[in-house]
């Protein structure tokens, strides 16, 4: 079953582009990555799913229900963590959490304490006195306390130190193990790489690719670095499937997607000083996407 189904979702802010014809689906129980640089349309997509903004065209369904018509019913089972969290001043952390809890039925009251303990959050401090990172922790507890079936994270880790990031990821993984589906938006690829099974890549408002993370990283792309011992044509390695070809003195480096034997054939019989073949980081694969599409 698809928890999220997005069909040609389009949003213009007046004449300014938000997103254009965005379509993808997230399966139940999946951790789905959503990556792209700032301003690509990640937040616009997420805010439309939450009915904070209204689509210009297209539609989306969550749990099989229309996001506009059934928005408030859908949101019973959604936990949302925005990139920046803001709360009413003059309230204690516990007051905010209780206010938040009052919107949901059957809240387990112990869960607030449990989550606060995991995230090392003092419940009796005033919101105004909290640092950016601590406010973020309030956001995490607040987003998870009603045990949502769908967790939507929009650049969730900014402001958290590495230790807290790890605790946060563990928490998300545990929720996922208990059945929660996760949509994880980020421009930091390593975190997406760590958690997600699939990823949608968005650029300038359009989805340019949907990839299986493992396939993207392991099967398809190889990063080559060849130090040639004899002179070859600049275009020698520029065969089908090669990207980001850079020649630096006698060293050629590039990404290659395709049958590895093709590349071995190219090298075969040539004199080479050094050869490095490795899995590219997602970052490099991703940069390649952007350069190719640009």
């Amino acid at each position, binding site marked *: 079953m698809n928890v999220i189904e997005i069909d040609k979702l389009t949003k213009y802010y007046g004449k300014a582009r938000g997103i254009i014809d965005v379509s993808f689906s997230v399966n139940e129980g999946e951790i789905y990555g959503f990556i792209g640089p700032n301003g690509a349309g990640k937040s616009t997509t997420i805010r439309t799913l939450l009915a904070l*903004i209204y689509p210009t065209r297209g539609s989306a369904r969550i749990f099989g229900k229309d996001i506009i018509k059934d928005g408030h019913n859908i*949101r019973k089972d959604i936990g*949302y963590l925005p990139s920046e*969290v*803001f*709360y009413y001043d003059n309230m204690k952390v516990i007051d905010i959490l209780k206010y938040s809890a009052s919107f949901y039925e059957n809240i387990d009251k112990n869960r607030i304490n449990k989550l606060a303990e995991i995230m090392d959050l003092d419940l009796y401090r005033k919101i105004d006195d909290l640092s950016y990172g601590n406010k973020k922790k309030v956001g995490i507890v607040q987003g998870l306390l009603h045990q949502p079936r769908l967790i939507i994270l929009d650049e969730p880790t900014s402001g958290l130190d590495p230790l807290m990031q790890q605790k946060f990821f563990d928490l998300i993984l545990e929720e996922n193990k208990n059945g929660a589906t996760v949509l994880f938006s980020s421009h930091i690829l390593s975190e997406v790489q760590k958690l997600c099974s699939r990823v949608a890549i968005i650029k300038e408002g359009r989805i340019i690719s949907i990839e299986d993370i493992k396939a993207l990283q392991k099967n398809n792309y190889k990063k080559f670095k060849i130090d040639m011992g004899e002179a070859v044509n600049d275009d020698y390695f520029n065969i089908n499937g090669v990207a980001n070809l850079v020649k630096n003195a006698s060293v050629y480096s590039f990404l290659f997607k395709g049958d590895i034997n093709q590349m071995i054939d190219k090298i075969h019989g040539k004199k080479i000083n050094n050869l490095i073949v490795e899995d590219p980081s997602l970052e490099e694969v991703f940069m390649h996407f952007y350069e190719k599409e640009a």
Partner: protein
Amino acid sequence: MNIFSQELKMSAASMIYWTASIVLFVLLFMFMYPPISKDIQVIESILSNFPPELRRALGMTTLDLSQVLGFYGFLFIYILLIGSVYAMKSGISVLSEEIRSKTADFLLVKPVPRTRIVSAKILSILSNLIVQNLLFMFISYIIISSYVNGSLDTRTFILINLSLFQVQLFFAAVGLFLSVLIKKIKTVLPVSLGVVFAFFVIQMINQSLNDPKLAYITPFAYFDVSKIIQNVGYDTSFLIINIIIIFILTALTYIIYQKKDIPSL
């Protein structure tokens, strides 16, 4: 219910301050009533040197300042002004504050329809205005009574006071409507002051020119204190116009807010 009580918690202090300020205003200016009523001939001869347009604009030709309700009525013009600024401020801020303080992302992702959010917030304004009016009416009744020999004309007193509530409803509705119409309101009080004073100036011009058409566009004319004292009642057509305007603006608030894009952080 939770939004409503949260809203009340956040707005109670402000309501008390504004109520205290109009009480204080009445208390201070009523001190001037005994000397003015005693020397009313002298005062009137001074006032008669003012151009008649100005006297009409200030409401000094139709109110009898030697009578306690006449004097109170004269003060009441300014109470209406202060009360209206408060109502307008409440109306503008109740929905837009969530966007300004960036808490809209918190509230609007909760499992409640937007219409229910608007209702809860409007209800909180209504409660504040009702409490304010009851408090103010009660305290000012005590103050005014202390200046009356014999009994106070309670009916007229209540009619004058109830006009405050109705004018406030008008401005609260205008505030709500503006707050959903304008994309992002940066500051609330200057806008409220500006709009209320504009309507007030229209009323001054209306009184000065005696132009019956102008009266239709300002609530200060719908509830003209001197006419309330004269007739011991409201002008029914203005009463209805006021209700219709409030109703339309409130309905538009619901409709526009339902489709409003919440600007991102």
